[in-house]
């Protein structure tokens, strides 16, 4: 089982910038992103999220998002995708950073999820 990360943000710049932080500690982890609407405005896009799932090299994807409406598009994309996607209601940056560090260190999904639990702040 290989683990990757997908980042979903309302803002294209955040979606582009966050992987730079993660790559510093997780050079070997596949990280894909979906930022902004189809027009590049502030918002999210189910199509971009599906694309981010497809582009991810891992067979199990850990997905993180910023605001609630991103979660709705994420869940729609999950229902339409063949990839196995795990969605977390954690702080976006901090949760993704934690997951990236742990995936790079070879930690398994159960242990990663235990470490993500205290970072859960949405529902």
């Amino acid at each position, binding site marked *: 089982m290989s683990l990757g990360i997908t980042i979903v943000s309302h803002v294209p710049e955040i979606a582009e910038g966050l992987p730079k932080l993660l790559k510093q500690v997780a050079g070997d982890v596949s990280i894909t992103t979906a930022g902004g*609407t*189809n*027009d590049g*405005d502030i*918002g*999210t*896009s*189910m*199509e971009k999220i599906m694309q981010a799932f497809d582009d991810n090299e891992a067979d199990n994807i850990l997905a993180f998002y910023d*605001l*609630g*409406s991103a979660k*709705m*598009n994420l*869940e*729609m994309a999950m229902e339409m995708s063949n990839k196995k996607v795990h969605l977390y209601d954690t702080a976006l940056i901090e949760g993704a950073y934690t997951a990236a560090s742990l995936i790079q260190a070879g930690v398994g999904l159960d242990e990663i999820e235990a470490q993500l639990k205290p970072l859960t702040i949405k*529902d």
Partner: protein
Amino acid sequence: MTLTVDTLTSWMNNFADKIEVNKQYLSDLDTPIGDGDHGFNMSRGMEAVREKLTTKPVDLQAGFKNIAMALISTVGGASGPLYGTAFLEMAKKSSSTDDLGEVLKAALAGIQKRGGAKPGDKTMVDVWSELVPEVKAGTLSKDKIERAVESTKDMVAKKGRASYLGERSKGHVDPGSESSGYLFEALLETEGLL
């Protein structure tokens, strides 16, 4: 009371008209308790729906599905996946029934599954959950629609952007409830649908 490709199309065009006329008002409602874009989001979405329906769908299910996909691709905000899921669920349901009440009941369940909101959370769920039973009972009226929309004014938001404001979300009508009100008004006005 027959749901057909033609009545569906009239319903949607009427809804699109209402959104177009009220898009500034809907965005204004979204300003104090959100990000001020709900009218523009819905207008972009319903223009895409109108455009899509200029090609007549092969059947009711295809019609609902096309509407859903147009909304999902173009709306951008939370209302995109919410209305999108509503119409996707209507597409599924319409394969087994043309009873509008049943179809709308499936839509409401879809909105609740997608957004996790309950009645009282100051979202479009408040309008849908109030009015779907009225459609089923054949008692939908303009007055009931207005009251359902207005009822969100004094609620404290528990879901969506307005929920960040806590108590401060009180005193404002929920924009998604207002646009949902237009959907039910359009339904009421559509010749031969109810």
